[in-house]
């Protein structure tokens, strides 16, 4: 078997200094094969974003070993080649776009940064079209966009350098279902066409089920269970937290009348 594209061993992450130093990721192991799409789900605040941020070099205080594409990762900061190979879509689309840069500038600077000089204009058009934004959005500033439109600009930016690995942190949670369907179809197409590898965080188990082969479930800084998506679909989970999560998912999609309960108690 070939080496995993993403390899994480005994990752611990700490925040704060001195007596305030707290460990928020408690030694996790995770392997994602080349071309695989791997899901990360779990409790809010359990450390999912922190794991992705550690991979891209945004978390200074960590221990353990990580590698991407066979390259061992250093403590902080990553080479330009790394970012050409690995791109991340951040959970928070406001914070990740510069407020004084138009969409056009965000994308052209990203392309320039990665040494792409040919056909920049056409590439920007194509990127915007891929994420379902017409040319009318090209010269807008972030504050002139809706939440979902901003998230799509962030996705276009991540796709711009044609990366091999995408770290996706809730890429579609700000999107309505129709745009979500378009983006997920686009991500599926890109993966099958170019053999991309995805590590994807989402709290939407329907999205994870659609996109991923395997999934790891996190709670309070630990991976409590990893399972095949098929097993998840058949509700074959071992760990109580995973079971609880699956149960909640069924309830919130209205299968077992949370609304009925609420309306009963109202009446």
């Amino acid at each position: 078997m070939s080496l995993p594209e993403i390899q994480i061993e005994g990752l611990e992450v700490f925040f704060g200094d001195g007596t305030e130093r707290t460990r928020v990721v408690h030694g996790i192991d995770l392997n994602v094969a080349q071309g695989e799409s791997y899901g990360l789900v779990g409790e809010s605040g359990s450390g999912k974003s922190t794991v992705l941020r550690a991979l891209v070099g945004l978390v200074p205080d960590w221990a353990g070993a990580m590698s991407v594409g066979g390259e061992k990762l250093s403590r902080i900061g990553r080479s330009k080649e790394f970012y050409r190979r690995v791109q991340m879509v951040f959970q928070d689309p406001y914070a990740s776009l510069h407020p004084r840069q138009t969409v056009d500038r965000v994308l052209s600077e990203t392309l320039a940064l990665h040494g792409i000089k040919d056909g920049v204009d056409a590439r920007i058009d194509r990127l915007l079209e891929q994420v379902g934004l017409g040319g009318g959005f090209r010269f807008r500033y972030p504050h002139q966009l809706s939440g979902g439109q901003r998230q799509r600009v962030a996705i276009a930016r991540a796709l711009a350098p044609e990366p091999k690995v995408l770290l996706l942190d809730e890429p579609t949670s700000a999107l309505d279902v129709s745009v979500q369907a378009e983006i997920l179809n686009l991500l599926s197409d890109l993966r099958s066409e170019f053999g991309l590898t995805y590590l994807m965080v989402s709290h939407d188990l329907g999205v994870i089920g659609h996109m991923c082969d395997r999934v790891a479930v996190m709670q309070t800084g630990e991976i409590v269970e990893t399972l095949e998506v098929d097993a998840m679909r058949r509700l074959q989970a071992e760990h109580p937290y995973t079971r609880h999560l699956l149960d909640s998912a069924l309830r919130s999609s209205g299968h077992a009348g949370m609304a009925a309960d609420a309306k009963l108690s109202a009446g």
Partner: protein
Amino acid sequence: MSNLLDIENLSVRFPTRSGSFEAVRGISLSLGRERLGIVGESGSGKSMTGRAILGLIRKPGQVTADRLEMQGESLLTASPKRMRAIRGKHISMIMQDPKYSLNPVMTVGDQIIEALRTHEKVGKAEAYKRALEMLDAVAIREPERVMKLYPHEVSGGMGQRIMIAMMLIPNPEILIADEPTSALDVSVQLQVLEIMDKLVRERGMGLIFISHDLNLVAGFCDRVAVMYAGRIVEVCEAGRLHEAKHPYTLGLLNSVPDLERPRPRLEALTRDPAWREAPSVSALL
């Protein structure tokens, strides 16, 4: 019984390079002591509707309406001072992007305490205690630790719940919640919905619940308005959302990925230009 909000023919416009852009195009709705869901695709004008109610459309944006009233009081002619008093005390809005709306240089605890103390005369110790209880109520683990954190130090879902705590603590009569649970795992999501639900049931709060999660809205709300291109294209009882008639609503329902019924490809929506032109459906009570 009188309505909490009555809105007739509300429009929101922005001047752009290529002329004026109408983000909301003459919608009418009222809100009783109920859970009103607003769904619709990205850019359809959901957030702008919420912001317009609160007088938060920034210049050069323009808001017009035949009627925009909170329990009979016009919000269009209210003074800026009166609007500041209304925001928070009578109407609160949970913004779609919590981290952007929180003050980056103030700790989470100080912000919640300040939100409470601008609307109510309470001592520091009491305010601290209530802030802590509120964080606990929205299922934040280790609330004492989180009170001391700055917004950039909390996770996406924690930021969202902090915003919810801040907006609920002054006990508003109307809550506009813009995608309030989009960053929450399903289990925490249920707990947060339960809190809002309780406020509607026990205190008669009116809730406008903006979301793109159709299943969630169908299960949680009483009525749903479906927006498309700045208009309301369909209004229905939430429980009957799955019997919706408008092709756009059906298209939305069809593009939801379902864990139990996987498909190789998700259906993307084909939009019909006629949808834009159809007159807005009234969601008045």
